[in-house]
């Protein structure tokens, strides 16, 4: 599943359902009684797996699965196609994370049950994008007309690419890409924005654009992405969000981050009401609950 597989209207329905779940959790506590979610995680991802497990448990369903390839039949050489055929007999819905790109798509072609892509290599992480969109929509009330700053590793960050692709469908969106030269957003995204006439800027320093942002999406700048130590030392502080930089921001700007955070957001910022990244993790559960209900035809 790619977030763009859903139309804007379908996403709206999903987010409205997620908001209703947030307001009336008791009404959904038995919505999935008797249903089973299989979490097939071929590589470790505690956060996403637990979010799915929490979502299904809060809906009254049960969870089976494995947390890494070594504890699954993949270690014996079983193909994804065969595994999902067997899982289809055991569960009603499956969330799959796999290090190989396209693996969940292969699974969905062979499966008798809905398969949710819980991350496939550097390719897609659609439920993270749904989480990001739900957080923005809930905390801001809409998804259009924002100036959004994306900061850090914009080259390899799949959550960044998915979010850009999702936001271009909403009118009057403006992007500001804040990254070192080495980690600029890929050419195919720039080409897509030019083709659609969507305004964007590329800058090096976060401070320079902070006052103009409605949303700031932070990602981690990893040392190993740089060609040399000197460049890393010179640039790394540009991409660390601290209290001083927050003083430059609008009063209602939101700071988002897909987590895990290492040091790119100073812990002092956590107390700032504009810091939305932990609430984002909460919305991740609601949106996964809404997705499970929708895909099981129980919404």
């Amino acid at each position, binding site marked *: 599943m790619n977030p763009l597989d859903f139309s804007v209207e379908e996403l709206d329905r999903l987010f409205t359902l997620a908001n209703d779940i947030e307001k009336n959790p008791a009404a959904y506590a038995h919505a999935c009684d008797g249903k089973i979610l299989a979490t097939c995680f071929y590589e470790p991802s505690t956060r996403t797996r637990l979010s799915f497990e929490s979502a299904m448990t809060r809906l009254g369903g049960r969870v089976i699965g494995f947390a890494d390839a070594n504890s699954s039949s993949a270690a014996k050489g079983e*193909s*994804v*196609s065969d595994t999902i055929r067997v899982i289809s007999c055991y569960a009603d819905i499956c969330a799959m994370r*796999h*290090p*190989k*790109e*396209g*693996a969940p*798509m*292969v699974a969905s072609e062979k499966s008798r049950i809905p398969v949710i892509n819980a991350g*496939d*290599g*550097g*390719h897609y992480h659609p439920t993270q994008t749904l989480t990001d969109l739900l957080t923005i929509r809930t905390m801001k009330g809409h998804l259009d007309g924002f100036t959004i700053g994306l900061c850090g590793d914009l080259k390899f960050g799949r959550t960044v690419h998915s979010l850009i692709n999702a936001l271009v469908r909403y009118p009057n969106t403006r992007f500001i890409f804040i990254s070192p030269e080495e980690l600029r957003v890929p050419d195919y995204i720039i080409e897509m924005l030019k083709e659609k006439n969507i305004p964007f800027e590329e800058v090096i320093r976060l401070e320079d654009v902070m006052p103009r942002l409605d949303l700031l999406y932070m990602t981690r700048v990893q040392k190993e992405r740089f060609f040399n130590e000197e460049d890393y030392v010179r640039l790394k502080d540009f991409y660390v969000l601290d209290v001083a930089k927050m003083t430059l921001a609008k009063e209602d700007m939101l700071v988002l981050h897909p987590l895990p955070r290492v040091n790119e957001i100073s812990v002092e910022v956590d107390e700032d009401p504009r810091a939305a990244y932990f609430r984002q993790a909460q919305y991740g559960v609601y949106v996964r609950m809404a997705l499970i209900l929708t895909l099981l035809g129980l919404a």
Partner: protein
Amino acid sequence: MLNVGKIEEGFVLDHIKAGKSLSIYEHLQLDKLDCTVAIIKNARSNKLGKKDILKVECDIDMLDLDVLAFIDHNITVNVIKAGEIVEKKELVLPQQIKNVIKCHNPRCITSIEQELPHIFVLADPAKEVYRCKYCEEKYRESAKF
């Protein structure tokens, strides 16, 4: 100049980029056909300077036009009956090609799932861009042909 005679029944693939005829021979699996095939390399061409030509004496239905269009949709396909051109087929880029080229992305599921077909989908007809159905890696001509 070398002369290759007319064919009575079959097809002539004209305006092949010079040097590409053997690759087309291979991809159309002409080696599996029990019929006469003439491969003409570096023929003079007003349009291309130099070109290759393939003449094949077999039924046109035995030719996979999708594969040919994918390789080069500028190739002219002349259908020959009784020694005369009776039809010129227009090649259209196929929406999807299966097991013609392989995805070379080491992170793609096709790199480990053995029975999986290698499917490429036409992502941008204007720029003739094909992407792997599974990982969406762009197909680069220089890497294969």
